Protein backbone atom coordinates (compact mmCIF):
# COMPACT_ATOMS: atom_id res chain seq x y z
CA UNK A 1 0.00 0.00 0.00
CA UNK A 2 1.14 3.52 -0.78
CA UNK A 3 2.32 5.51 2.24
CA UNK A 4 0.93 9.06 2.09
CA UNK A 5 2.19 10.52 5.36
CA UNK A 6 5.04 9.72 7.73
CA UNK A 7 5.51 11.36 11.13
CA UNK A 8 8.88 10.77 12.74
CA UNK A 9 10.10 11.73 16.19
CA UNK A 10 7.68 14.62 16.48
CA UNK A 11 7.86 16.49 19.74
CA UNK A 12 5.59 19.13 21.23
CA UNK A 13 5.89 21.14 24.43
CA UNK A 14 3.82 24.12 25.48
CA UNK A 15 5.64 26.86 27.33
CA UNK A 16 3.15 28.86 29.37
CA UNK A 17 4.64 32.32 29.70
CA UNK A 18 1.56 33.54 31.55
CA UNK A 19 2.38 31.07 34.29
CA UNK A 20 6.03 31.90 34.82
CA UNK A 21 7.31 29.97 31.82
CA UNK A 22 6.22 26.56 33.07
CA UNK A 23 6.84 23.82 30.52
CA UNK A 24 4.01 21.51 29.63
CA UNK A 25 5.32 18.51 27.72
CA UNK A 26 2.62 17.13 25.41
CA UNK A 27 4.11 14.38 23.27
CA UNK A 28 7.56 13.24 22.21
CA UNK A 29 8.94 10.75 19.72
CA UNK A 30 5.67 10.53 17.80
CA UNK A 31 6.31 8.18 14.88
CA UNK A 32 3.78 6.50 12.61
CA UNK A 33 2.73 6.36 8.99
CA UNK A 34 -0.59 6.58 7.15
CA UNK A 35 -1.34 4.42 4.16
CA UNK A 36 -3.69 4.98 1.27
CA UNK A 37 -7.04 3.25 1.64
CA UNK A 38 -6.78 2.80 5.41
CA UNK A 39 -8.08 4.50 8.53
CA UNK A 40 -5.78 4.73 11.53
CA UNK A 41 -7.15 5.72 14.92
CA UNK A 42 -5.34 7.61 17.67
CA UNK A 43 -6.00 5.81 20.95
CA UNK A 44 -5.35 6.65 24.58
CA UNK A 45 -7.06 8.51 27.41
CA UNK A 46 -8.19 12.14 27.28
CA UNK A 47 -5.40 14.67 27.60
CA UNK A 48 -2.73 12.34 26.25
CA UNK A 49 -2.17 14.55 23.20
CA UNK A 50 -4.33 13.05 20.45
CA UNK A 51 -5.83 16.33 19.25
CA UNK A 52 -2.41 18.00 19.46
CA UNK A 53 -1.03 15.40 17.06
CA UNK A 54 -3.83 16.05 14.57
CA UNK A 55 -3.23 19.80 14.87
CA UNK A 56 0.49 19.41 14.22
CA UNK A 57 -0.21 17.33 11.10
CA UNK A 58 -2.50 20.12 9.90
CA UNK A 59 0.07 22.83 10.65
CA UNK A 60 -2.21 24.39 13.23
CA UNK A 61 0.27 23.68 16.05
CA UNK A 62 4.00 24.04 15.57
CA UNK A 63 6.36 21.16 16.40
CA UNK A 64 9.46 21.54 18.57
CA UNK A 65 11.32 18.95 16.49
CA UNK A 66 10.72 16.02 14.18
CA UNK A 67 9.31 15.70 10.69
CA UNK A 68 5.87 15.27 9.18
CA UNK A 69 6.41 14.22 5.58
CA UNK A 70 3.39 14.21 3.34
CA UNK A 71 3.05 13.37 -0.34
CA UNK A 72 1.98 16.66 -1.84
CA UNK A 73 1.69 17.18 -5.60
CA UNK A 74 3.88 14.15 -6.19
CA UNK A 75 6.73 15.13 -3.87
CA UNK A 76 7.45 14.81 -0.18
CA UNK A 77 7.15 17.98 1.87
CA UNK A 78 7.63 18.49 5.61
CA UNK A 79 4.63 20.10 7.25
CA UNK A 80 6.65 20.73 10.42
CA UNK A 81 9.04 23.11 8.66
CA UNK A 82 6.86 24.32 5.75
CA UNK A 83 6.33 28.02 5.14
CA UNK A 84 2.84 29.39 5.85
CA UNK A 85 2.20 29.57 2.11
CA UNK A 86 3.07 25.93 1.63
CA UNK A 87 0.94 24.87 4.62
CA UNK A 88 -2.03 26.66 3.05
CA UNK A 89 -1.39 24.90 -0.26
CA UNK A 90 -1.13 21.53 1.51
CA UNK A 91 -4.46 22.23 3.23
CA UNK A 92 -6.08 23.24 -0.03
CA UNK A 93 -5.00 20.18 -1.97
CA UNK A 94 -3.66 17.41 0.25
CA UNK A 95 -4.64 17.37 3.93
CA UNK A 96 -8.28 17.85 4.96
CA UNK A 97 -9.45 18.26 8.54
CA UNK A 98 -12.77 17.86 10.29
CA UNK A 99 -12.46 19.76 13.54
CA UNK A 100 -14.47 18.99 16.61
CA UNK A 101 -16.16 22.36 16.66
CA UNK A 102 -17.29 24.56 13.84
CA UNK A 103 -15.85 28.04 13.69
CA UNK A 104 -18.82 29.94 12.33
CA UNK A 105 -18.32 33.01 10.18
CA UNK A 106 -21.04 35.66 10.53
CA UNK A 107 -23.54 35.82 7.66
CA UNK A 108 -22.13 32.87 5.68
CA UNK A 109 -24.74 30.17 5.03
CA UNK A 110 -24.25 26.54 6.02
CA UNK A 111 -24.23 25.64 2.33
CA UNK A 112 -21.37 28.04 1.58
CA UNK A 113 -19.44 26.95 4.67
CA UNK A 114 -19.52 23.38 3.34
CA UNK A 115 -18.83 24.41 -0.27
CA UNK A 116 -15.85 26.67 0.55
CA UNK A 117 -13.05 24.05 0.30
CA UNK A 118 -14.13 23.41 -3.30
CA UNK A 119 -14.42 27.11 -4.11
CA UNK A 120 -10.84 27.81 -3.03
CA UNK A 121 -9.76 25.03 -5.36
CA UNK A 122 -11.43 26.86 -8.23
CA UNK A 123 -14.61 24.77 -8.55
CA UNK A 124 -17.56 26.76 -9.84
CA UNK A 125 -19.90 28.02 -7.11
CA UNK A 126 -23.03 26.22 -8.28
CA UNK A 127 -21.23 22.90 -8.73
CA UNK A 128 -19.72 23.23 -5.25
CA UNK A 129 -23.11 24.05 -3.72
CA UNK A 130 -24.68 21.08 -5.49
CA UNK A 131 -22.14 18.77 -3.86
CA UNK A 132 -22.74 20.41 -0.49
CA UNK A 133 -26.50 19.85 -0.91
CA UNK A 134 -25.90 16.17 -1.67
CA UNK A 135 -23.82 15.76 1.49
CA UNK A 136 -26.35 17.65 3.64
CA UNK A 137 -29.11 15.39 2.30
CA UNK A 138 -27.07 12.31 3.09
CA UNK A 139 -26.33 13.64 6.59
CA UNK A 140 -30.04 14.37 7.18
CA UNK A 141 -29.49 18.07 7.79
CA UNK A 142 -32.94 19.70 7.52
CA UNK A 143 -33.21 21.65 4.29
CA UNK A 144 -34.62 24.73 6.03
CA UNK A 145 -31.20 25.22 7.68
CA UNK A 146 -29.10 25.19 4.52
CA UNK A 147 -29.32 28.87 3.75
CA UNK A 148 -28.80 30.00 7.37
CA UNK A 149 -25.46 30.79 9.06
CA UNK A 150 -24.68 27.84 11.36
CA UNK A 151 -23.82 29.96 14.44
CA UNK A 152 -27.22 29.24 16.03
CA UNK A 153 -27.41 25.55 15.05
CA UNK A 154 -27.38 22.77 17.63
CA UNK A 155 -24.12 20.92 18.29
CA UNK A 156 -25.14 17.97 16.10
CA UNK A 157 -26.25 20.23 13.26
CA UNK A 158 -22.99 22.20 13.36
CA UNK A 159 -21.03 18.98 13.40
CA UNK A 160 -22.79 17.77 10.26
CA UNK A 161 -21.96 21.05 8.49
CA UNK A 162 -18.34 20.50 9.54
CA UNK A 163 -18.37 16.91 8.29
CA UNK A 164 -19.79 17.98 4.93
CA UNK A 165 -17.08 20.64 4.69
CA UNK A 166 -14.37 18.06 5.42
CA UNK A 167 -15.69 15.31 3.14
CA UNK A 168 -16.61 17.46 0.14
CA UNK A 169 -13.11 17.42 -1.39
CA UNK A 170 -11.00 14.47 -2.50
CA UNK A 171 -8.02 15.28 -0.28
CA UNK A 172 -5.69 12.27 -0.15
CA UNK A 173 -5.23 12.65 3.62
CA UNK A 174 -8.14 13.35 5.96
CA UNK A 175 -7.88 14.09 9.69
CA UNK A 176 -10.97 13.58 11.85
CA UNK A 177 -11.24 14.98 15.39
CA UNK A 178 -14.20 13.20 16.98
CA UNK A 179 -16.51 13.74 14.01
CA UNK A 180 -19.35 11.74 15.58
CA UNK A 181 -19.26 13.10 19.15
CA UNK A 182 -22.60 14.96 18.96
CA UNK A 183 -24.40 12.75 16.44
CA UNK A 184 -27.30 10.35 16.93
CA UNK A 185 -27.00 6.68 15.94
CA UNK A 186 -28.47 7.12 12.46
CA UNK A 187 -26.07 9.91 11.55
CA UNK A 188 -23.12 8.04 13.06
CA UNK A 189 -23.93 5.30 10.56
CA UNK A 190 -23.82 7.87 7.75
CA UNK A 191 -20.36 9.02 8.86
CA UNK A 192 -19.14 5.40 9.02
CA UNK A 193 -20.38 4.98 5.45
CA UNK A 194 -18.65 8.22 4.33
CA UNK A 195 -15.37 7.03 5.88
CA UNK A 196 -15.68 3.64 4.16
CA UNK A 197 -16.15 5.42 0.85
CA UNK A 198 -13.06 7.59 1.40
CA UNK A 199 -11.04 4.48 2.11
CA UNK A 200 -12.35 2.82 -1.05
CA UNK A 201 -11.29 5.94 -2.96
CA UNK A 202 -7.74 5.51 -1.65
CA UNK A 203 -7.58 8.25 0.98
CA UNK A 204 -5.49 7.86 4.12
CA UNK A 205 -7.51 8.75 7.22
CA UNK A 206 -6.47 9.44 10.78
CA UNK A 207 -9.11 9.94 13.42
CA UNK A 208 -9.96 10.31 17.07
CA UNK A 209 -13.14 8.41 17.99
CA UNK A 210 -14.26 8.00 21.55
CA UNK A 211 -17.34 6.11 20.39
CA UNK A 212 -16.31 2.43 20.43
CA UNK A 213 -18.90 1.33 17.85
CA UNK A 214 -17.66 3.89 15.36
CA UNK A 215 -14.05 3.14 16.11
CA UNK A 216 -14.53 -0.61 15.63
CA UNK A 217 -16.39 0.00 12.39
CA UNK A 218 -13.73 2.20 10.76
CA UNK A 219 -10.32 1.44 12.31
CA UNK A 220 -7.74 -0.55 10.39
CA UNK A 221 -5.21 -0.05 13.14
CA UNK A 222 -4.85 1.86 16.39
CA UNK A 223 -1.91 4.11 17.23
CA UNK A 224 -1.50 4.19 21.01
CA UNK A 225 -0.67 7.78 21.86
CA UNK A 226 0.20 6.98 25.50
CA UNK A 227 3.39 5.43 24.08
CA UNK A 228 4.33 8.95 22.98
CA UNK A 229 3.52 10.59 26.30
CA UNK A 230 6.24 13.15 26.79
CA UNK A 231 6.98 12.16 30.41
CA UNK A 232 7.51 8.58 29.37
CA UNK A 233 9.96 9.44 26.63
CA UNK A 234 12.03 11.47 29.06
CA UNK A 235 12.19 8.67 31.62
Amino acid at each position, binding site marked *: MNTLLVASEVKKTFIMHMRGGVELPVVANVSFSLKAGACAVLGGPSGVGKSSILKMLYG*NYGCDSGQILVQHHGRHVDVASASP*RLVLEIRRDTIGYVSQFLRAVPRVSALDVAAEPLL*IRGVERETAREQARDLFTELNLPEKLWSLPPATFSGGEQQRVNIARGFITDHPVLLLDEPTASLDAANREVVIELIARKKADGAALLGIFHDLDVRNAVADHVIDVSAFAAGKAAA
Partner: protein
Amino acid sequence: MTPSATLEALAKAGIPAPVKPLLTVENLTRVYGKRIGCADVSFDLWPGEVLAIVGESGSGKTTLLNCISSRLTPTCGTVHYRMRDGVSADIYKMAEAERRYLMRTDWGFVHQNPIDGLRMTVSAGANVGERLMAVGNRHYGNIRGAAIEWLARVEIDEDRVDDQPRTFSGGMRQRLQIARNLVTEPRLVFMDEPTGGLDVSVQARLLDLLRGLVSDLGLAVVVVTHDLAVARLLSDRMIVMKEGRVIEAGLTDRVLDDPRAPYTQLLVSSILQV
Protein backbone atom coordinates in the same frame (compact mmCIF):
# COMPACT_ATOMS: atom_id res chain seq x y z
CA MET B 1 5.31 33.35 -27.07
CA THR B 2 4.11 36.26 -25.01
CA PRO B 3 4.51 35.88 -21.26
CA SER B 4 0.75 35.43 -20.74
CA ALA B 5 0.58 32.80 -23.49
CA THR B 6 3.38 30.93 -21.74
CA LEU B 7 1.47 31.10 -18.48
CA GLU B 8 -1.67 29.80 -20.18
CA ALA B 9 0.23 26.90 -21.68
CA LEU B 10 1.63 26.07 -18.25
CA ALA B 11 -1.83 26.29 -16.71
CA LYS B 12 -3.26 23.93 -19.36
CA ALA B 13 -0.53 21.43 -18.62
CA GLY B 14 -1.52 21.62 -14.95
CA ILE B 15 1.75 23.26 -13.94
CA PRO B 16 1.25 26.21 -11.63
CA ALA B 17 2.86 29.38 -12.91
CA PRO B 18 5.98 30.44 -11.01
CA VAL B 19 4.71 33.09 -8.65
CA LYS B 20 6.88 35.78 -7.18
CA PRO B 21 6.12 38.02 -4.23
CA LEU B 22 4.10 41.11 -5.00
CA LEU B 23 5.65 43.10 -2.18
CA THR B 24 9.01 42.59 -0.50
CA VAL B 25 9.75 44.54 2.65
CA GLU B 26 13.31 44.43 3.97
CA ASN B 27 14.66 45.77 7.27
CA LEU B 28 12.15 48.57 7.31
CA THR B 29 12.84 51.00 10.13
CA ARG B 30 11.34 54.32 11.10
CA VAL B 31 12.53 56.30 14.08
CA TYR B 32 11.05 59.46 15.53
CA GLY B 33 14.01 61.20 17.10
CA LYS B 34 15.15 58.69 19.68
CA ARG B 35 11.88 56.75 19.74
CA ILE B 36 11.35 53.71 17.54
CA GLY B 37 8.28 53.70 15.32
CA CYS B 38 9.08 50.36 13.79
CA ALA B 39 12.40 48.56 13.52
CA ASP B 40 13.89 45.98 11.24
CA VAL B 41 10.67 44.61 9.75
CA SER B 42 10.98 42.20 6.82
CA PHE B 43 8.36 40.11 5.03
CA ASP B 44 7.10 39.04 1.60
CA LEU B 45 3.51 39.39 0.48
CA TRP B 46 2.28 37.16 -2.34
CA PRO B 47 -0.49 37.81 -4.84
CA GLY B 48 -3.89 37.04 -3.32
CA GLU B 49 -2.50 36.79 0.21
CA VAL B 50 -3.94 38.59 3.23
CA LEU B 51 -1.46 39.59 5.92
CA ALA B 52 -2.62 40.95 9.27
CA ILE B 53 -0.40 43.16 11.40
CA VAL B 54 -1.58 42.98 15.00
CA GLY B 55 -0.48 44.49 18.27
CA GLU B 56 -1.82 46.92 20.85
CA SER B 57 -1.99 50.69 20.40
CA GLY B 58 1.46 52.19 20.07
CA SER B 59 3.07 48.95 18.90
CA GLY B 60 4.09 50.52 15.60
CA LYS B 61 1.59 48.86 13.29
CA THR B 62 0.28 52.05 11.72
CA THR B 63 3.82 53.45 11.31
CA LEU B 64 4.74 50.23 9.53
CA LEU B 65 1.65 50.37 7.31
CA ASN B 66 2.37 53.96 6.37
CA CYS B 67 6.00 53.16 5.56
CA ILE B 68 5.01 50.23 3.34
CA SER B 69 2.35 52.19 1.52
CA SER B 70 4.66 55.15 0.76
CA ARG B 71 2.76 57.50 3.02
CA LEU B 72 5.66 57.90 5.43
CA THR B 73 9.32 57.79 4.39
CA PRO B 74 11.23 55.13 6.34
CA THR B 75 14.51 55.96 8.07
CA CYS B 76 16.06 52.91 6.42
CA GLY B 77 15.10 49.69 4.70
CA THR B 78 13.45 49.00 1.37
CA VAL B 79 10.02 48.23 -0.07
CA HIS B 80 9.94 46.54 -3.48
CA TYR B 81 6.71 46.20 -5.45
CA ARG B 82 6.25 44.01 -8.50
CA MET B 83 4.63 46.19 -11.14
CA ARG B 84 2.09 44.88 -13.67
CA ASP B 85 4.89 44.38 -16.20
CA GLY B 86 6.54 41.91 -13.79
CA VAL B 87 9.42 44.21 -12.89
CA SER B 88 10.11 44.72 -9.21
CA ALA B 89 10.70 48.35 -8.29
CA ASP B 90 11.89 50.08 -5.12
CA ILE B 91 8.97 52.38 -4.33
CA TYR B 92 11.20 54.95 -2.65
CA LYS B 93 13.39 55.21 -5.75
CA MET B 94 10.45 55.93 -8.04
CA ALA B 95 9.67 59.41 -9.25
CA GLU B 96 7.00 61.06 -7.11
CA ALA B 97 4.56 61.10 -10.06
CA GLU B 98 5.05 57.40 -10.69
CA ARG B 99 4.47 56.58 -7.03
CA ARG B 100 1.30 58.67 -6.94
CA TYR B 101 0.02 56.94 -10.07
CA LEU B 102 0.65 53.57 -8.42
CA MET B 103 -1.29 54.64 -5.33
CA ARG B 104 -4.22 55.81 -7.43
CA THR B 105 -4.43 52.71 -9.62
CA ASP B 106 -2.76 49.52 -8.49
CA TRP B 107 -3.03 50.19 -4.77
CA GLY B 108 -5.87 51.02 -2.45
CA PHE B 109 -5.84 52.43 1.08
CA VAL B 110 -8.83 51.95 3.38
CA HIS B 111 -8.65 54.28 6.38
CA GLN B 112 -10.15 53.52 9.76
CA ASN B 113 -12.16 56.70 9.56
CA PRO B 114 -13.98 56.97 6.22
CA ILE B 115 -13.77 60.77 6.41
CA ASP B 116 -10.02 60.41 5.76
CA GLY B 117 -10.60 58.40 2.61
CA LEU B 118 -13.70 60.04 1.13
CA ARG B 119 -14.67 63.46 -0.06
CA MET B 120 -17.64 64.22 2.10
CA THR B 121 -19.14 67.02 0.02
CA VAL B 122 -19.34 65.34 -3.36
CA SER B 123 -21.79 62.57 -4.24
CA ALA B 124 -21.22 58.88 -3.56
CA GLY B 125 -21.07 58.29 -7.31
CA ALA B 126 -18.41 60.97 -7.73
CA ASN B 127 -16.37 59.50 -4.89
CA VAL B 128 -16.19 56.22 -6.76
CA GLY B 129 -15.88 57.80 -10.21
CA GLU B 130 -13.05 60.12 -9.22
CA ARG B 131 -10.48 57.32 -9.14
CA LEU B 132 -11.59 56.18 -12.58
CA MET B 133 -11.15 59.71 -13.92
CA ALA B 134 -7.69 59.78 -12.35
CA VAL B 135 -6.69 56.86 -14.54
CA GLY B 136 -7.99 58.53 -17.68
CA ASN B 137 -11.65 57.57 -17.98
CA ARG B 138 -13.59 60.48 -19.46
CA HIS B 139 -16.90 58.99 -20.58
CA TYR B 140 -19.51 60.20 -18.06
CA GLY B 141 -21.96 57.36 -18.76
CA ASN B 142 -19.31 54.68 -18.31
CA ILE B 143 -18.03 56.23 -15.10
CA ARG B 144 -21.53 56.52 -13.65
CA GLY B 145 -22.31 52.96 -14.73
CA ALA B 146 -19.15 51.65 -13.02
CA ALA B 147 -19.95 53.69 -9.90
CA ILE B 148 -23.46 52.24 -9.66
CA GLU B 149 -22.14 48.74 -10.21
CA TRP B 150 -19.59 49.19 -7.42
CA LEU B 151 -22.16 50.67 -5.04
CA ALA B 152 -24.24 47.53 -5.62
CA ARG B 153 -21.24 45.31 -4.90
CA VAL B 154 -20.82 46.99 -1.53
CA GLU B 155 -24.58 46.80 -0.91
CA ILE B 156 -25.44 50.47 -1.33
CA ASP B 157 -28.72 51.11 -3.17
CA GLU B 158 -28.51 52.73 -6.59
CA ASP B 159 -30.84 55.52 -5.47
CA ARG B 160 -28.12 56.81 -3.10
CA VAL B 161 -25.63 57.43 -5.93
CA ASP B 162 -26.26 61.19 -5.97
CA ASP B 163 -26.25 61.60 -2.18
CA GLN B 164 -23.22 62.91 -0.33
CA PRO B 165 -21.49 60.50 2.07
CA ARG B 166 -22.08 62.87 4.99
CA THR B 167 -25.71 61.67 4.84
CA PHE B 168 -24.54 58.01 5.14
CA SER B 169 -24.23 55.89 8.30
CA GLY B 170 -20.76 54.83 9.49
CA GLY B 171 -21.07 51.36 7.98
CA MET B 172 -22.25 52.74 4.63
CA ARG B 173 -19.40 55.25 4.55
CA GLN B 174 -16.91 52.47 5.13
CA ARG B 175 -18.47 50.40 2.33
CA LEU B 176 -18.33 53.42 0.04
CA GLN B 177 -14.66 53.91 0.87
CA ILE B 178 -14.03 50.30 -0.09
CA ALA B 179 -15.87 50.75 -3.41
CA ARG B 180 -13.83 53.88 -4.13
CA ASN B 181 -10.63 51.91 -3.58
CA LEU B 182 -11.57 48.83 -5.56
CA VAL B 183 -13.06 50.45 -8.66
CA THR B 184 -9.65 50.70 -10.36
CA GLU B 185 -9.10 46.96 -9.75
CA PRO B 186 -6.02 47.35 -7.57
CA ARG B 187 -3.84 44.34 -6.84
CA LEU B 188 -2.82 45.46 -3.37
CA VAL B 189 -4.96 47.10 -0.70
CA PHE B 190 -3.81 48.48 2.63
CA MET B 191 -6.35 48.67 5.43
CA ASP B 192 -5.96 50.45 8.75
CA GLU B 193 -8.45 49.09 11.31
CA PRO B 194 -11.20 48.85 8.65
CA THR B 195 -13.85 47.72 11.13
CA GLY B 196 -12.79 49.95 14.04
CA GLY B 197 -15.53 52.08 15.50
CA LEU B 198 -18.41 50.12 13.96
CA ASP B 199 -21.22 48.27 15.78
CA VAL B 200 -20.63 44.53 15.88
CA SER B 201 -23.49 43.74 13.48
CA VAL B 202 -22.22 46.35 11.03
CA GLN B 203 -18.71 45.00 11.54
CA ALA B 204 -19.84 41.43 10.75
CA ARG B 205 -21.47 42.60 7.54
CA LEU B 206 -18.36 44.51 6.50
CA LEU B 207 -16.07 41.59 7.28
CA ASP B 208 -18.24 39.27 5.26
CA LEU B 209 -18.20 41.72 2.37
CA LEU B 210 -14.42 42.12 2.56
CA ARG B 211 -13.87 38.36 2.68
CA GLY B 212 -15.96 37.93 -0.45
CA LEU B 213 -14.29 40.75 -2.36
CA VAL B 214 -10.79 39.65 -1.40
CA SER B 215 -11.37 36.12 -2.65
CA ASP B 216 -13.37 37.10 -5.78
CA LEU B 217 -10.81 39.69 -6.88
CA GLY B 218 -7.72 37.80 -5.70
CA LEU B 219 -6.57 40.88 -3.79
CA ALA B 220 -3.40 41.00 -1.76
CA VAL B 221 -4.11 42.85 1.48
CA VAL B 222 -2.09 44.21 4.38
CA VAL B 223 -4.55 44.85 7.20
CA VAL B 224 -3.67 46.49 10.48
CA THR B 225 -5.95 45.55 13.34
CA HIS B 226 -5.86 45.27 17.10
CA ASP B 227 -8.81 42.86 16.91
CA LEU B 228 -7.57 39.27 16.78
CA ALA B 229 -11.01 38.02 15.69
CA VAL B 230 -10.82 40.28 12.63
CA ALA B 231 -7.32 38.97 11.91
CA ARG B 232 -8.58 35.38 12.19
CA LEU B 233 -11.47 35.97 9.82
CA LEU B 234 -9.62 37.93 7.17
CA SER B 235 -5.99 36.90 7.10
CA ASP B 236 -3.87 33.96 5.98
CA ARG B 237 -0.77 35.08 7.79
CA MET B 238 -0.04 37.44 10.64
CA ILE B 239 2.70 39.48 12.19
CA VAL B 240 2.58 40.37 15.89
CA MET B 241 4.26 43.63 16.83
CA LYS B 242 5.38 45.03 20.12
CA GLU B 243 7.34 48.22 20.70
CA GLY B 244 8.01 48.56 16.99
CA ARG B 245 9.42 45.10 16.46
CA VAL B 246 8.02 41.86 15.03
CA ILE B 247 7.93 39.39 17.88
CA GLU B 248 6.05 36.57 16.18
CA ALA B 249 4.97 35.77 12.63
CA GLY B 250 3.32 32.85 10.90
CA LEU B 251 0.13 31.26 9.69
CA THR B 252 -2.77 33.07 11.35
CA ASP B 253 -4.37 30.05 13.01
CA ARG B 254 -0.98 28.75 14.14
CA VAL B 255 -0.12 32.04 15.84
CA LEU B 256 -3.55 32.28 17.49
CA ASP B 257 -3.91 28.62 18.53
CA ASP B 258 -0.28 27.94 19.45
CA PRO B 259 1.23 31.33 20.35
CA ARG B 260 4.91 31.19 21.27
CA ALA B 261 6.05 34.62 22.34
CA PRO B 262 5.07 35.72 25.85
CA TYR B 263 3.39 38.83 24.45
CA THR B 264 1.36 36.86 21.89
CA GLN B 265 0.22 34.51 24.64
CA LEU B 266 -0.86 37.53 26.66
CA LEU B 267 -2.77 38.98 23.68
CA VAL B 268 -4.52 35.70 22.89
CA SER B 269 -5.43 35.06 26.51
CA SER B 270 -6.92 38.56 26.73
CA ILE B 271 -9.61 37.86 24.10
CA LEU B 272 -13.06 38.07 25.63
CA GLN B 273 -15.16 34.96 25.06
CA VAL B 274 -18.79 35.50 24.13
